[in-house]
């Protein structure tokens, strides 16, 4: 069998970068599926595109800035109402730093 396009170790590394936990079984299945997909994508190697510029924007357009004028934004309480936890007008998050009180 040919070398895999992506190893189990790489799958676990990418999962860490993507902030996803995968069980051992999920990681194994992910490796097989990504390997098949990346194998198919090797078809791109037929093309020499070293001189072709990339297309990041399909429709050429300017990105004009709008006037820098203050305006009302959404209501804070309405926005915070969608947070899993909020406190004192802000998002409540798990403790990041230990502090002495």
């Amino acid at each position, binding site marked *: 069998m040919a070398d895999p396009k*992506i190893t189990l170790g*790489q*799958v676990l590394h*990418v*999962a860490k*970068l*993507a*902030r*996803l*936990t*995968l069980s051992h079984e999920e990681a194994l299945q*992910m490796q097989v*599926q*990504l390997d*098949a*997909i990346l194998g*198919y*994508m090797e*078809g*791109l190697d037929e*093309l020499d*595109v070293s001189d*072709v*510029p*990339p*297309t*990041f*924007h*399909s*429709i050429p*357009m300017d*990105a004009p800035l*709008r006037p820098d004028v203050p305006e009302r934004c*959404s*209501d804070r309480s*309405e*926005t915070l*109402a*969608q*947070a*899993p*936890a909020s406190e004192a007008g802000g*998002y409540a*998050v*798990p*403790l*990041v730093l230990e502090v002495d009180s």
Partner: protein
Amino acid sequence: MSDFPWQSAFEIRDQVAQGGTSAVEVTRAYLARVEELNPMLSCFLTIDHEGALAAAAQVDHGRGAGEALGPLAGVPIALKDNLCTRGVRTTCASKILGEYIPPYDAHAVEALRASGAVILGKTNLDEFAMGSSNENSAFANVHNPWALDRAPGGSSGGSACATAAGLASLALGSDTGGSVRQPAAFCGITAIKPTYGRVSRYGLVAFASSLDQIGPMARSVREAAQLLEVIAGHDRRDATSAERETGEYLTACGRGVKGLRVGVVRDLIDGLQDSDVRAGVVAALGALEQEGASLVDVSLPHAEHAVSVYYLIATAEASSNLARFDGIRYGLRVPGKDLTETYTKTRAEGFGPEVRRRIMLGTYALSAGYYDAFYLKAQRVRTLIRRDYDAAFERCDIVCTPTTPTPAFALGEKTGDPLEMYLADIFTLPPSLAGLPAISTPCGLSAGGLPVGLQLVAPPFEEEALCSAAQAVENECGLLGSHPPALA
């Protein structure tokens, strides 16, 4: 109401305007039909009785007060559940947003409200619009109304199903790589993927920002054209919204195709394995020719690479866009022992398998050491795909292909093999990558009674040409008047 539920949006508006019926009466009738059939079809995730009846009452009140009615006054519409609706749950068919209630309306939703449309509810989709069969919804599988064991297509499968089954008059979907066109083809309706920038993405939950567009879905070309007129236009809240005047899409439907040069991607059509799809496309080309269009052979030599290019670019963008779902500001939170574990547990539990797979693929394609080989290379080949169209449009005004290689496949048929599912998108991906407008409209039925869709693609901002040509196809080989047999 005559011909309920199949009467057109124009007929509903006229009836409401003339007092033949009230918007509330129309809304009640459609809501009752939704209640009756949704348990079988699963096309709606949220039914907004209260909001729909309030909007209808407002239309009736306006009429009573002698106010001018909007172009969609009293017309019942369904919205894909990745369009933000103020005060109404917007889930993206994901557990991670299962209870999310947006504090604002998407631009397209505001435009609909201003037009007098009545929003019945929010439709099912593949989670975060990632899928081609609607089987990636965290909540339920949508069924194709033409054959309940078949996929409705995806990702806007709920919107396509609701429209085809007469649960709504019109619907909005979103299209990143074919997500309005492919389900429209599978469910026998018309859908338009506008030019990138034609419709504001403000309030559309982002999947792949360089590709996403909101698109109209309807049972006829004229209704889709009318709906596009309502939602198109510049919006300063979307930095990629084009400063272009909205076209006269409805008028364009009546223009005919005399002198129109239709580009036929001959090798692709001759290579079709499915004889029903080939027959449908050939019939549509015959119809266009008969109406005065001329056929020109063109080729898209790099279209075969579109699946690779798309599934690198779209997943890379998705991995970045979906980083925002971390359990802090909205949606699900699964607490862990520290912040990092809270992120990883939330995302592992909140995202389904396909979304996780795409985030993984996209993260890999952008990661150190692989960016040039995958992501950048894909963006370079994307240029070649664009150039293919540039060359084709020197010889023709629109390019014609089927929308899909086959009619609707069976539910469960492709779920075991993600790559096989991706390959089914081969015809809808190239115009998406090039940012071009495209329409899918029915061009017949297969021997098994399933709809076949024709795709027409035009140069940037030439949606009018799509409407003219699709109308000619609809006149000759459309499905108007034939409805899903089980529901008629």
